Every structure is written in structure tokens, then in C-alpha cells.
């Protein structure tokens, strides 16, 4: 029945080049009314570029776009133009104003007016109702920054949904949502689908695609691989189409079964005693042995990132003690942690990870340079060697080591940051959501790297929302709930259901 639906949106022969990279070549895409259509591909496959061309963020070089009801090819020169004809987008990174209220964010640029002035009452009431439809009960007059990333994401979606749209583009909307929130989002998506809206869903989560999508379009290296019906395409085949070669099945990747007793005898790298930071994480005890990969699990806002930040000194702990390699360590700033041999890949790549205007080279060497200090300058030649080494080792896709890092795709930016930390040769590496918003291929690569580091004797703290992934790489998992460390699972206890139980605890609470 879906097949009979008339195309809502047709893109033909879309081509776009960036300096040194052909981002899209001759790509076709068709969206039908009332369908949820997954756009899949590795990092740098051209998904984001295709979306940007469609929404007018980037100009295409050749190609045509047709929208139902408009009898000539459309050209969008800005997201505003796209929105005016019914194409709305929610991007991967939240593009809202954190200092404005939730209601203002929803109605910014189209505020309800009364006598030429903004009608705050109506605006707040309507926003409240809108969010209620998404099962979000919050005070819409509070600044957006008061709420978790997940809520912010939902507000962005509410805004896009409210702006009357024929085509709704969701670019990685679920990457910062936990499972319950994803379910909520899916409910909304189905509702929208029934009302005839066509939804383009860009995601890296395979299971979500199979849960909700009717059709899948796969891109690879800027070219169209094909369009498939979800039912007729097994997930293994989908992954193959995306990667372009048969990859090791993700499931086959598994850690060397670490001998538990053996591990216990090894040197203790991290020993936190009652470490805490008021307002973000309650005092916790944590012991990590050399070569261990320890996972932190819990819902969003449970304090997983905050625990890591306290150890690294990103939020200076105000209680307790930290012993690093059996020596007491007073950490006042991240530099102290860095100097003693820690590294920290933060959760929020755009805000805390990349230094966007600096080149790939500068982004890679900056941590090592900071560690060496101001007067021991890394020579240009050395810098280039280091940059090339990690571009090669991590297979970073970039036209040159000297382009600003902001020109790279999300996954490649993440690799640059990973390279930055590996260059400092840390003993203890904190990875906070290293695979978020990253394609399957790179994800596997990063997971393999994690296991390799642990074999080399590096100790790793791994944080991820995906329990599968955690089970694959971690020897031990600490579970957090409501800013407290509640339990620690290891060996045979490590299973999906045990972790879920620990996360859920006695009472499940919504945000």
C-alpha cells in the first residue's frame, strides 16, 4: 500500500563538491507521503550534505529537487526558505538558544502577537500544550539550558513539528536520548506519519531503523547505493551495503576473557575514595586495575559523565581523595590530570571537544603541546609527522592536515580528538560516548582500538548509552542512578538484563 503513495519529495542527480572531496555525486532520493525513510551511510557518506542541500544550508552544483504541489524544481537558498515551503529539520547538534526560555525557543521568529507586541501568555500556553503532546511536562518559562540534552532535543523536535511541515528531517535525533525517550519520540513520529508527513530519519542505530522505518536509502562515499524496503533487507546486508565490504560481524568482536583473579592482582591505577563534586555527583568509591576497561552505565543525567569529570578534574572534586597509580593526586585543573597521564574525550564533541577553527594538525597536537608547556614548542615538522601518523592510523578522512577541523564530518572529528589524546600516550583514558553519532564501521574501529589499548596495558573508563557496546568492550561495569554509584557488575554478572535491573533500581523516574 505504501508503494502506491505518490512521491512527496524527489531529488534527482544531486552533485556537490567541497575542496578536495566529492561529497555527493549524482544522488537520487525519493520520499513518499506518510512514510518514515531512513537515510543510512558511514561517516562522510554524504548524508549530512544531502540534508544540507535539501534545506538550503549548502548550494548544490547540479541536480533538481521537486516537492509535491510545486510544479517547478525548487531551489532553497536558506533553511528559512525550505521551512516556508514545508521542509523542517532537527539537526544532530541542537541549534537552539540555551539562554532563552523553552517557549521562546519554540516560537522564536514567529511569536504570537497581540497589538503588535509579543503575547507571552498565549505563547507559553501553546508551548506547554505542544510539549504535553510529546509527554513532556516542564515549565516552559524556564531557560532551555536548565534542562537535559534530551529535553532540549525534544524541544527542537516540537518546534519543527509545530512549524507546519510536509517533510520533517530528523538528523540523528536519538543520539542523545535514552530508551524511554526514544520510545516517546517514536510515538510522535508514528503520529506524524499517520497525518501524512514524510519523515527523513538519519541515524546510526540499526535497531531503530528496523523498528520504525518503512524504507531505507543507503549512501556510500557520496554515491547512491540504493533504495530498499526495510522488511526485505536483513540488517547484515544493510551493514554490508553501507560499508561496502564484508565486515566482521559486530557480535564477533569480543574481548579476551580477562582472568578476573589475575586482574585483581594487577596494579591499581585509579582508586577514588569518597570522591565527589557537590551538585553533580555524590561521593563514590571506585577502584580500577591496570589494563581494565570499566564501563559506566546509567540513564542520562545519572551522573556517568559527571563521575568521569570529577576524576579528570574537569569539575574539580570538592570531597574525597583520589589515588592515581597508588600515589595521592591533588587535581585542581585538567592540566594536572593530563600531566599525570590521564586523557579525557568529552561527551559533547562540538562544545568541549573540537577547536573548530584550528586545523586538524593543530587539533591533534594541542594536548601534547599543553602538556609540554609553553616553551617546549613542537616543531612544525614534528607536528606534521604526528598529524600524518594519526590521520593514517585512525584513517581520518580529510583533504589535508591543514584544513580547519570543522570541515570534517562528525565521526572524523571524533577520530581527530581520539588522535589528540593517543598522542599524549596516556595510562588512563576516559572515553565519554566516543561512538555517539558515528557510523557502524567507525564504531567497530573504535571498539577494537579500545580493546587494543587495554591489551597494551592502558586502563580505560568507557561511557556509552548503548548497553550492547558496553558489554562488548568492558570487563566491569559500574552503574549509576540519580547521581550515585549504585552497583558494580563484573564477570558472569555482566548481562543486558542485570544492567537494566541495576539501572532501573527500585523506582523508575521520568525526567
Amino acid at each position, binding site marked *: 500500500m505504501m508503494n502506491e503513495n505518490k512521491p512527496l519529495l524527489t531529488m534527482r542527480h544531486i552533485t556537490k563538491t567541497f575542496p578536495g572531496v566529492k561529497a555527493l555525486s549524482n544522488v537520487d532520493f525519493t520520499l513518499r507521503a506518510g512514510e518514515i525513510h531512513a537515510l543510512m551511510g558511514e561517516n562522510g557518506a554524504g548524508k549530512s550534505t544531502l540534508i544540507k542541500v535539501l534545506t538550503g544550508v549548502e548550494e548544490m552544483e547540479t541536480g533538481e529537487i521537486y516537492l509535491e504541489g510545486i510544479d517547478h524544481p525548487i531551489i532553497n537558498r536558506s533553511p528559512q526558505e525550505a521551512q516556508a515551503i514545508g521542509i523542517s529539520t532537527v539537526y544532530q547538534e541542537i541549534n537552539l538558544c540555551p539562554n532563552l526560555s523553552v517557549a521562546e525557543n519554540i516560537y522564536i521568529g514567529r511569536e504570537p502577537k497581540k497589538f503588535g507586541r509579543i503575547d507571552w501568555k498565549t505563547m507559553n500556553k501553546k508551548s506547554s500544550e505542544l510539549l504535553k503532546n510529546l509527554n513532556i511536562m516542564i515549565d516552559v518559562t524556564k531557560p532551555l539550558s536548565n534542562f537535559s540534552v534530551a529535553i532540549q532535543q525534544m524541544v527542537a523536535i516540537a518546534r519543527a513539528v509545530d512549524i507546519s511541515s510536509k517533510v520533517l528531517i530528523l538528523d540523528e535525533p536519538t543520539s542523545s536520548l535514552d530508551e524511554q525517550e526514544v520510545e516517546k519520540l517514536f510515538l510522535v513520529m508514528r503520529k506524524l506519519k499517520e497525518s501524512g508527513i514524510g519523515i527523513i530519519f538519519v541515524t546510526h542505530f540499526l535497531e531503530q531503523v528496523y523498528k520504525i522505518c518503512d524504507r531505507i536509502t543507503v549512501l556510500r562515499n557520496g554515491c547512491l547505493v540504493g533504495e530498499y524496503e526495510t522488511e526485505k533487507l536483513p540488517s547484515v546486508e544493510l551493514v554490508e551495503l553501507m560499508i561496502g565490504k564484508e565486515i566482521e560481524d559486530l557480535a564477533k568482536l569480543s574481548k579476551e576473557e580477562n582472568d578476573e583473579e589475575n586482574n585483581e592482582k594487577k596494579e591499581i591505577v585509579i582508586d577514588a575514595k569518597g570522591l565527589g563534586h557537590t551538585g553533580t555527583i555524590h561521593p563514590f568509591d571506585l577502584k580500577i586495575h591496570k589494563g581494565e576497561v570499566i564501563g559506566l552505565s546509567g540513564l542520562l543525567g545519572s551522573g556517568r559523565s559527571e563521575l568521569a569529570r570529577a576524576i579528570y578534574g574537569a569539575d574539580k572534586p570538592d570531597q574525597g581523595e583520589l589515588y592515581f597509580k597508588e600515589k595521592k593526586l591533588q587535581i585542581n585543573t585538567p592540566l594536572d590530570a593530563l600531566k599525570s597521564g590521564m586523557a579525557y574525550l568529552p561527551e559533547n564533541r562540538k562544545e568541549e571537544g*573540537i577547536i573548530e577553527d584550528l586545523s586538524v594538525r593543530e587539533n591533534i597536537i594541542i594536548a601534547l603541546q599543553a602538556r609540554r608547556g609553553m616553551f617546549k614548542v613542537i616543531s612544525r615538522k614534528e607536528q606534521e609527522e604526528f598529524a600524518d601518523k594519526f590521520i593514517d592510523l585512525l584513517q581520518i578522512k580529510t583533504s589535508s592536515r591543514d584544513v580547519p577541523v570543522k570541515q570534517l564530518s562528525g565521526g572524523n572529528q571524533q577520530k581527530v580528538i581520539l588522535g589528540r589524546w593517543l598522542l599524549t600516550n596516556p595510562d588512563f583514558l576516559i572515553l565519554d560516548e566516543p561512538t555517539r553519532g558515528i557510523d557502524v564501521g567507525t564504531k567497530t574501529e573504535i571498539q577494537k582500538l579500545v580493546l587494543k589499548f587495554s591489551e597494551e596495558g592502558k586502563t580505560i573508563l568507557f561511557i556509552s548509552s548503548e548497553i550492547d557496546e558496553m558489554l562488548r568492550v568492558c570487563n566491569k561495569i559500574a552503574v549509576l542512578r540519580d547521581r550515585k554509584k549504585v552497583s558494580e557488575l563484573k564477570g558472569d554478572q555482566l548481562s543486558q538484563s542485570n544492567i537494566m535491573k541495576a539501572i532501573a533500581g527500585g523506582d523508575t523516574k521520568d525526567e
Partner: protein
Amino acid sequence: MNKMKELWKRVTGFSLLFPLVCLVIVLVVNLIKTPDFFKISMNNGVLYGYVIDILNRSSELIILAVGMTLVVAASGGTDISVGAVSAVAGAVCIYSLIGGASSSVYRIPYVLAIVLGILAGTACGAFNGFLVAKLHIQPMVATLILFTAGRGMAQVLTQGFILYVRKESFKFLGNFLPGVPIPTPIFIATIVVVLTFLILKKTSLGLYIQSVGVNRKASRLVGLNSSLIIFLAYVFSGFCAGIAGMIITSRVYSIDANNAGLNIELDAILAVAIGGNSLGGGKFSLAGSVIGAITIQALTTSLYAMKVTADQLPVYKAVVVIIIVALQSPIVKRWMKNIKQKLASSRNGKKVEA
């Protein structure tokens, strides 16, 4: 043909190209209007000429622009107190040298007075830096304090009088050293620029400043002390203002707390912008700011040479500045690119027809 294209690409990709072109245009217009513009003559053992005058007069501006560049790059804000701070430095220098009344007798060695003056400027910079880096006050607001209070502080020292130093040696710094034909400020500005360049080049401070300017949070996590770097940038800007204050007072061998370095902070900010630097912070070019400062002074001097009176000057200056800044805006650059593409495609079209 290809080689030409490559060369052209390299030339147009050169980030200083635009500021340089602006400067050259100003100079060429001068040459047409004032044929003896580039004439340099020797009189009484010193060099005279418009070009010498431009370089001489732009010295304070160059020095201030160097400090301003680092402030802008590190904090994404501007230090609007530099004019007032140079007046404070000048007042401290002269007051410590001769006391509260015009005189021809030094109370302390001249060099010591200069050191005190520059220290006063640096202290003002440290105050600004503390407000911006530690207390996270917006740069414009933080430096507004000294912008208004600075001249008042200088007035307290001079007690509202214009203090004159009637001694030949005091004029050396702002005019000529005995037996040297080139004005001293040119040397001072050169030293400041070269030293700053070397410090940025030989340490990783340049990279640190850019990194902090682009993303303060991320810079902190890679181990940079973001606050310290921003603090240092303001301290350095105060230091530069101190040096500029020394030149300004020496030029007129007096301190007039109301008028020394008046409005020069705006020219310094403008110099940074004309040099192609983003006022939002991050990447910067020291050379660009220096060229910007010279361009502004060249403009002023050439307008005077064209017999524009002092009270009309700002109007003409504004027109030229608007053109220069507008041409550098990304929107205008895109228009130009589009026009170029259209021209190219129509030319290609004709070829096909032929």
C-alpha cells in the same frame, strides 16, 4: 598557463592580500593627488616626507594594535581602555619625573620614570585582565571602567594641569635621538612588533591564544589555563598602552590627561579589523593588524595632504573605512565570487557558440 593559475591561487589565498591591497590603493591615490607624496628629504640632519610622517605617526597605533590583536584573539572582546591607560602611564611617568608642576629638573632618573609609566600601564592591564578572565565580566564592560576612570586617575596626579617637561632629553623618545635621522617611535614600534612576533613564534603562546579564542571550554580540557591566557593578553595590552603613553607624552613633552591618546582605542580596534582579523576571536594575524594601523594613519595623513581640515576629516575617513570593511565581509565576498562565476560562464558560453 597552469603555473600562472597556481600562482594566482596562492596570491589570492594569501590572507594578508586584502589589507595590503587597501594600503596600496590609499598610497596610489595619494601619488596621483600629491605628486611629491613619496619624496623624502633631509633637513637639519633628519628625514622629512609624507611616508616618514605616516610611519612615525602610526607608531603608537601599531603598538596598541599589537596588544589589541591578542586581546581580541584570546577573549573575543576588545580593550577600549587603551587610550585612557596610555594617559595614565604618561601621567605617572611625568609626575614621578618632575612632580606636580611644570619643571626642567628631574627628581628621579629618566629611565626609572619610563619604567614606572609602563608599569602603571601594565597594572591597568592586569586589572582589566582580572575582571575579564577571573570574574568573567564582558570585555567591553570591564574595560569601560578604566576607559572612563583612567583619565580621572591621571587628572588626580596632574591636578588638572597640563604638566610640561622642559628638558631636551625628554623629547628623544617621541621625536629624534641626537644624530639619528629616523624618528625614534619607528624604532620602538618595530621592536615591539618583532619581539611580540618572536615570542608568539618561539613559544606556543600563539597557538594557545588561538585555541582559547576559538573554544575556551575545549581548551581547558586539553590542559590549557584559559583564564591565565586571557589574563596575560590583557596585561600585554596594558603594557603596550604604557609604551604608547611614553611616546605620546614625549612627542609633546607634556601630559594633558584629557587629550593624550584620545579616541585612539577606536583606531586600534579598527586596525585589527582592517587587518582581516575576526573580532570574534580565534585565528589572528599580527602582520594584518600592523598593516591596518599603517593604513589608517596613511589615510589620515593623506587627507591632510589633500587639504582636508581636521574637523571634516572623520567624515572622509569614515567613508573609506566603510568601504574597506564592507569589502572584507563574507557576504560581499560571495557576491564578488558569484559575479566572477557568471562572467566566466558567459565567456565559456560564447566560446561554445563560436
